């Protein structure tokens, strides 16, 4: 049984290891020779036309309303985990407690719903 710290170190090592693996893959790929620079080869593929415009424009994301609601829900989940862990020990009280909490949040969802925030714009 490893100590927590050892486990974190292990995970960190796996990140490095995976990156290394990818590096090896690229090395093998490289050993087959360099890619040949040719006209139009590196232009992003778009249905047989050379797209000349840079596409990095101010992109219109249509679900920002939902994204904002999501942030709130994400936040709330932070409380759910510790609650879930002690739930069986505490029992009914925990149920009511979290019931109130979720009810409050559900109100928020309903409000957003009523305002059409759940719809794509």
């Amino acid at each position, binding site marked *: 049984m490893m100590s927590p710290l050892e486990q974190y170190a292990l995970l960190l090592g796996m990140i490095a290891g995976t990156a290394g693996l990818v590096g090896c893959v690229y090395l093998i790929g490289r050993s087959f020779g360099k890619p040949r620079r040719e006209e139009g080869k590196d232009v992003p593929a778009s249905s047989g036309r050379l797209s000349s415009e840079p596409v990095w424009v101010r992109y219109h994301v249509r*679900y920002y309303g939902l994204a904002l609601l999501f942030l709130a829900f*994400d936040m709330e989940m932070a409380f759910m985990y510790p609650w879930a862990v*002690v739930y*069986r020990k505490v029992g009914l009280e925990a149920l009511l407690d979290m019931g109130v909490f979720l009810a409050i949040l559900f109100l928020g969802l309903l409000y957003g719903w009523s305002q059409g925030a*759940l719809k794509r714009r």
Partner: protein
Amino acid sequence: MTVFLVLVMLFAGAYLVAVLEGWTSTGRLRFAGPFWAAVALLGRESIVPRKPDRVLYETAPVLLLVSAVLAAAVLPLGPHLVIADLATGALAVNAALAYVMVALVMAGWGPDGAYAMVAGWRFLGQLVAYSMLIVMPITAVAMRAGSLVTTTIVESQAGIWNALTQPLGFVLFFLAAMAVCFLPPFDLPTAPGELAGGIEAEYAGPRLAVVRLARMVLVVSLSLAVTVFFLGGWLGPFLPGWAWTSLKTLVVAATMLTAGRYVPRLRGEHVMEWGWKLGIPLALVNIFWVGITLVLRSM
């Protein structure tokens, strides 16, 4: 040692999943298929698009693979066959999976191609839809186990699988899992017919090979998560634990791969609307259902 074993099984699983995918798409079961496909990809050129955000373009495949591997690292194949048996394992899975989205957003923005960019932001929207359906069912599972430790969660199902005690959560989590590894009908970021490959469109050769590998590992990790959280992980008669886990995982993966072929791709707005108007309320109902049953039993 454990690390080595688990990783070997993980990548073996990825290979088998690749075989399964080839079978679902071509109808022929070729065990050498993925190998040749991989070698062919390694042997092909791989260029960087015209004016990319090089950092994002190169990081994306690595990050995708890393997050898939880390997600699997905290999930047990057997009682002691787990790389890192974290105290917050169930949470750590989510943490790892969150970076799948980050990777795809990078892959979308990096190459400065229109199809890829639309695809990348599409997947962020998909995350907004499925994320809660990953988190909430896991919470319900943790309630029953009284712990976030994945091994404890498996042991808590010794009596009866979570899939049976909380079917609602199981279904939601299964669908959300498919959405995480953007399998059909949730393949909005790769949509061949709509975006000519989407985020994959600009990756070729070895880079594409890494993306494909990461995708396969991701499928395995998610299937493993379904197995651990809902199908009683390694529990089962006769066979050794790891065998049961692998068996269940492969079955789940096969189901995920085949299911999507018989329905059309969902519309992005539907994924979001259904996720929030149907999914989240149901997930909350599931939590309360589990809560009430637990309280009643404790009385």
